[in-house]
């Protein structure tokens, strides 16, 4: 029904909570929301391969397991490799008739540290080999689990515990790695960005990803009030501002074709996004101007990619 009318209502979602409440995430944790939506989109025929990180820790302190589906955690940098094994194992067992036929969704989940940094090689392997699995990177833009250290997903200027806003060096010196482009470079079936503030967009993307065989990647921005030093009651608002200011554009790359997920008539002033966040409090007007100029250029490039790839 959802697909037919393109109309969404929360009541059309399955009521089952396959990522149950009662887990140990912080107040206002958007990555936990991402997992809840993910499981609503995928349903029970799913196996989750979780990298070490916040979401693994908060959801699996034995015996309090938040997962209603088969779930495996091995280590930090290898969620994509474990998922590759799970997918291959299912494939051969189904081929030999030892496992009932039918689709089993295999999902690897990692944070930005577990994906952009330590897990990048395993991710590349999974994407390149074309395993019929999806990698979900929940990006809260730093190593939150170990206490807010910078990752290569931390944006320029952000203050973290290893890129503190000092007098000589004002926060993160580098720009955020473009994870989705790395995924796209593997010529995978489907890659998309998403944000926990747009749950229906995210869930639709998850379903679309699994409508294709082969490897797929979704990169979801999931605000972390603890690490961003924001009000836990406002994570939805901050996620929306990330999208509406152009800081985190929502788009998909479907078999190489770029498409913006929403038409923004204009980009809201970046300050609206930055100023409520403690991690950006130290930024000067000049630094904000640099960030804003960069994001506008990147946004324009994405729009151009949409135009170009629509024609090919």
């Amino acid at each position, binding site marked *: 029904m959802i697909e037919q009318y393109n109309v969404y209502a929360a009541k059309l979602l399955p009521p089952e909570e396959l990522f149950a409440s009662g887990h140990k995430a912080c107040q206002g944790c958007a990555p936990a929301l991402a997992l809840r939506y993910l499981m609503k989109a995928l349903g029970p025929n799913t196996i989750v391969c979780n990298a070490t990180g916040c979401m693994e820790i908060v959801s699996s*302190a034995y015996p309090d397991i938040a*997962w209603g589906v088969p779930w*495996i955690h091995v*280590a930090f940098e*290898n969620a994509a490799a474990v998922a590759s*094994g799970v997918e291959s*194992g299912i494939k*051969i067992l189904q081929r*030999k008739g030892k496992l009932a036929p039918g689709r089993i969704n295999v999902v690897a989940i990692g944070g930005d540290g577990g994906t952009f940094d330590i897990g990048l090689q395993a991710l590349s392997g999974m994407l390149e080999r074309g395993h019929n699995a999806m990698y979900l990177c929940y990006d809260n833009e730093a190593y939150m689990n170990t206490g807010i250290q910078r990752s290569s997903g931390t944006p320029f200027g952000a203050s973290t515990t290893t890129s503190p806003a000092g007098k000589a060096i004002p926060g993160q010196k580098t720009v955020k790695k473009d994870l989705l482009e790395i995924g796209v470079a593997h010529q995978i079936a489907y890659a998309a960005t998403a944000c926990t503030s747009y749950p229906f967009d995210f869930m639709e993307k998850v379903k679309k990803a699994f409508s294709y065989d082969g490897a797929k990647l979704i990169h979801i921005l999931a605000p972390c009030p603890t690490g961003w030093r924001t009000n836990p009651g406002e994570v939805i608002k901050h996620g929306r501002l990330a999208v509406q200011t152009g800081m985190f554009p929502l788009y998909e790359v479907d078999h190489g074709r770029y498409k913006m997920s929403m038409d923004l008539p204009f980009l809201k002033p970046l300050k609206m996004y930055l100023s409520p966040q403690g991690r950006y409090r130290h930024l000067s007007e000049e630094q904000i101007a640099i960030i804003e100029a960069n994001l506008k250029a990147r946004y324009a490039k994405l729009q151009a990619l949409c135009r170009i790839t629509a024609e090919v």
Partner: protein
Amino acid sequence: MGKRKGVESSIALADSAAMCRIEAIAAYPITPQTHIVEHLSEWVNDGHLEAEFVPVESEHSAMSAALGMSAVGARTFTATSSQGLALMHEILFIAPAMRLPVVMAVANRSLSGPISIWNDHSDIMTDRDIGWVQIFAENGQECFDLVPACFRVAEDKRVVLPTILNFDGFVVSHMIEPIEFWTQEQFDAYLPPFDPQIKLDVRKPVAMGAVGIPEIYYEARLAQQNALLNAKAVVVEAFAELEKMVGRKYNLVETYKADDADAILYLMGSLSETAMTAVDNLRKQGKKVGLVRPRLWRPFPTEELVAAFGNVPVVGVCDRALAFGHEHHMVAQEIRALFYDAPHRPKLVEFVIGLGGRDVTIGDMEHILNRLLEVKNGAPVGPVEYVGVRK
């Protein structure tokens, strides 16, 4: 006895794994293990083996993917050496904790640096305490015979632990030997299909690899220790059934002319074949020397070793890796510990030999055995001797 054919040990080992009807392979190339996974990919690509061969991008991912394969219930195999084993190190500890009965062949090779592709035991000594069942094969026939034994032990419901088959790189792996193959019927009779009690199954969800809070971790680790110690009886069974099937006898501890020996040399891996010749040569001179070596290394066969050494007055120990910063190396440490509580404590003479592929000759072994006899006759034990090193 069946027909023997001349075949490289690595190829025989791969054939044996394929005939175990392995279902999933995650592999990365590293010398001198490479022939095994190359040959397995031929089995798969020629359509002779119904299995998924995943050519992963690192050994770290090889072990990680292997755990994923095993977790859904596929019989899983991999192989590695040296740096590859070292790169797996982190995940090696997790496999037995998750009770995933992967079988891995390790072609023992030195560790960097300096980089060396040649044989010694630095790799596996570094991964001694990973919690896997560990077995040693000393020649091509043993490589072939012991792969199904490894799967049988690993997947036994009383064990459910990953298992390593160690064999020497190049010295065994690349040697062409006359090897007696089992028939497929013998494999199928010896090794039942993998039937895991717990797996990742959407019809019956389980969580694998949960967080071990302080109230849980200690008990979980001890349960794993007990599982590994209890595996010994199952290895005995597996070897007994193997003997019934093909007539070759394997023991937890192998001995050679040790019963009446005045001195016994303890060594691991393929050096024993060189040492046996040396023993025979000395026996011809009326010198009563013998050998003891572990077939099963983990769980450590303490009682069997104590029994094998008996009341021998002198024991020599060969190490093929260094315990940097300690004057007694790994194997010597283990044997020293063995005798601490033993009813009879022999003199212990320690040797290091064959590091990084340095040739070990029959003459070297005769020298070591003669040295043991000198100690028996009153010569001082002395510090560890580095045999074959240039002064």
